[in-house]
């Protein structure tokens, strides 16, 4: 165990609706979907059509530019619907599931005993390859690269985030198999980053072949991007890969059982959930199977993921590919009389300009209102207080806005992803959509650098 890396900058947003540590088996969803929109920059090519029958692990579509990357069905069943958006962009491939799930079979072996190429092939075939993402750019890893390291963040500090130590309970063997696969893939170390605030679960502390790093501090200390920055930052021309603990387990299960079993645990959280707790479900489930009868009345925002970086879904939308959390918060589409003048005892703010600073322990209900109009980026010095990397966030953002590739590179664009700027976006006085600016910058870099 190495020394604890302490981070001071950041912000823990104390929201109402933390999941109680109880596992509940969710009802089986009536529909499942795989959403190409979960994967940045992906141009999907369908290999199935309406009414085709598929098994769990059957290919649904592939990446037009890297055809070896396949996306597969989480359950067996019939293709019920292919939802398209503007310009016929595929949004969702919807599957109506069978009673009993039938599985495609894949190679079953301890990854430690087979070659790197066999590991890659098995991941590509089963559709689990997309669980691996790369920095720079935060896109699906390129199977032709060898990363200088692979990072797993074993804890999440985002608001109401699931406790991975609880989620992975009892999955020692699956996790170890997954780690063995990662060891094969990595050109260097496999870093497993844990929170030093409490002793990590056995699943993490007894994992073999990984370097365990301890971290301490406020959010975004649990963001893998922050951890990479402190352990082994990404320089120009270098690549690291990242993966979440639940996805490591999926990979482990693939090698252990020889099938794509997309079972995962999802925390249902948020102020509008009646009884927030953990659900055992299957990847790609319609979230209604989890939220039904457990949410309050009123206009609600359903989010697959957390409130800072998650994706807005409809109440009968689907769980995102990478998500281990569903959050339900109230919509804020109403006018507030003189809201900017009120003392604000109940208004959450990073700044002490509302009197809520008198009550730091309170759990807040925050709705989706922007709380103000969009303005020029005027206020300086606040982003730096929640951005723990040695990067100038405001200057990098401005470089992105003016599309200065050279400057973006110099200011550290390779190290960041949208999620690293989520807190900046949250506290921003000018209400700028910072994460989409960062995404635009990353996309521009991909286009320019090839």
């Amino acid at each position, binding site marked *: 165990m190495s020394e604890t890396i302490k981070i001071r900058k950041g912000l823990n947003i104390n929201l109402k609706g933390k999941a109680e540590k109880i596992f509940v088996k969710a009802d089986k969803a009536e529909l499942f979907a795989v959403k190409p929109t979960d994967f940045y920059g992906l141009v999907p090519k369908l290999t199935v059509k309406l009414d085709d029958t598929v098994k769990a692990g059957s290919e649904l579509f592939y990446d037009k530019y890297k055809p070896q990357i396949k996306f597969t069905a989480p359950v067996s069943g019939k293709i019920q619907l292919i939802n398209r958006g503007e310009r016929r962009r595929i949004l969702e491939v919807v599957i109506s599931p069978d009673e009993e799930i039938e599985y495609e079979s894949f190679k079953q072996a301890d990854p430690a005993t087979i070659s790197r190429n066999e590991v890659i092939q098995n991941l590509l075939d089963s559709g689990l390859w997309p669980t691996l993402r790369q920095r720079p750019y935060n896109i699906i890893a390129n199977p032709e690269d060898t990363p200088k390291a692979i990072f797993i963040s074993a804890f999440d500090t985002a608001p109401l985030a699931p406790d991975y130590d609880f989620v992975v309970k009892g999955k020692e063997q699956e996790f170890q198999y997954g780690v063995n696969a990662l060891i094969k893939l990595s050109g260097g170390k496999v870093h497993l980053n844990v929170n030093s605030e409490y002793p990590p679960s056995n699943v993490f502390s007894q994992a073999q072949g990984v370097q365990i790093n301890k971290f301490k501090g406020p959010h975004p200390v649990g963001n893998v991007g922050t951890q990479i920055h402190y352990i082994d930052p990404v320089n120009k021309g270098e690549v690291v890969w990242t993966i979440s603990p639940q996805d490591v387990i999926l990979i482990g299960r693939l090698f252990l059982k020889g099938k794509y079993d997309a079972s995962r645990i999802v925390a249902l959280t948020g102020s509008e959930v009646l009884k927030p707790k953990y659900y055992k479900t299957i990847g790609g489930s319609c979230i209604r199977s989890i939220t039904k009868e457990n949410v309050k009345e009123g206009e609600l*925002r359903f989010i697959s993921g957390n409130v800072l970086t998650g994706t807005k879904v409809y109440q009968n939308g689907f769980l995102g590919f990478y998500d281990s959390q569903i*959050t339900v918060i109230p919509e804020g589409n109403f006018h507030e009389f003189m809201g900017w003048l009120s003392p604000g005892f109940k208004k959450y*703010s990073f700044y002490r300009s*509302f009197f809520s600073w008198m009550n730091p322990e309170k759990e807040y209900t925050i709705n*989706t209102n922007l709380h103000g109009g969009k303005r020029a980026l005027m206020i300086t010095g606040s982003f730096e207080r929640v951005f723990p990397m040695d990067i100038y966030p405001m200057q990098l953002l401005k470089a992105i806005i003016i599309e200065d590739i050279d400057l973006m590179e*110099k200011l550290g664009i390779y190290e960041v992803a949208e999620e690293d700027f989520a807190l900046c976006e949250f506290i921003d006085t000018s209400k700028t959509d910072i994460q989409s600016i960062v995404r635009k910058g990353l996309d521009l870099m991909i286009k320019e650098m090839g």
Partner: protein
Amino acid sequence: MKGIRNLLNKVKPNFEKGGKLEKFRSLFDAVETLLYVPDKVTRTGSHIRDAIDMKRTMIIVVTAMVPALLFGMWNAGYHHFLATGEFAEKTFIQIFTFGLLKVLPIIIVSYVTGLAIEIIFAQIRNHDVPEGFFVTGMLIPLIMPIDVPLWMVSVSTVFAVIIGVEVFGGAGMNVLNPALTARAFLFFAYPSEMSGTRVWVSGLKSGQGIIDGFSGETVMGYAASNRIDQMPFSPSDMFLGTIPGSIGETSTLAILVGAIILIWTGVGSWRIIVSMFTGGLVMGLILNLFAVNDYMALPACQHLIIGGFAFGAVFMATDPVSAAQTNKGKLIYGFLAGLLAILIRVLNPAYPEGVMLAILLMNVFAPLIDHYIIEANIKKRLKRVQTSNA
């Protein structure tokens, strides 16, 4: 409250694109958002946002200026009645009311002129009315002499908003602090109204009813003419602010209350405030070392409580748009502004006060300071590549 909302909803379509009052869209929008926080919700990125917005930020700054403003009103009355010899027979309310009636028109003129221009530009540029003028509109009166003609307030505000802000692309894009731009404009265009011995006390210029021998000179006036020993003010007068000067600048105590509000809420940069005071102190000490006259020998800490130094450090230098933007840059920027302010004040006989010029000068240099700070960060990153490749 529902009634107002219903009314707004009812008339709103007239102001939208294609409506018959489309020309007044910005005005309507300004009024509507003043009354109600918009109902807009998050579309992309973070689903929740901080309760703060630009209006809240600006109103905090205005709140921080209120102690200085209230004291300034009282002080205006106090000095006027000292000059007329009636101080002893006036009540606190009478003194304050006199000042209030003097200051209020200046504030109204400043806001009306500035907001009118902002709204017109917002309409032309098709964006929302920025809140920056909330603060600028209050800053301008606070740095005016009490007897400034109202038309001058208006002209200088026009100058500041158009030349200081709008030509650069609007709020957030300006290089210079707009309020200081207004004051600098008046200072160079109408020096007789903005400096000298007779403009700081109300009624002194007209001379009616003034008792013989009353001098309205500021501390700077005494000091610049080497008569510090004849000055009727003690350091505690200077700290409390019972001295002649621009409306809001005299009371260091009231300004410090504002500084605490700014720093506590996180709206103002403590780095700039602290480093500017430090810079002023250091230059004061340097001048003490080489003192050849009384002004240079003035105790360094007294420099911080006279003239516009404290006001400039707390409310002017901290403007986030025209100041340095990086944290390290802010320290350097503030320090140099403090240094220069005292240097100009003491050594340049043409300018009785150096704070305004020092801050404007540092406004111009702020991007350069930031440039070097950021270059250092870039170099560090490049070095990391070399070591990892070696």
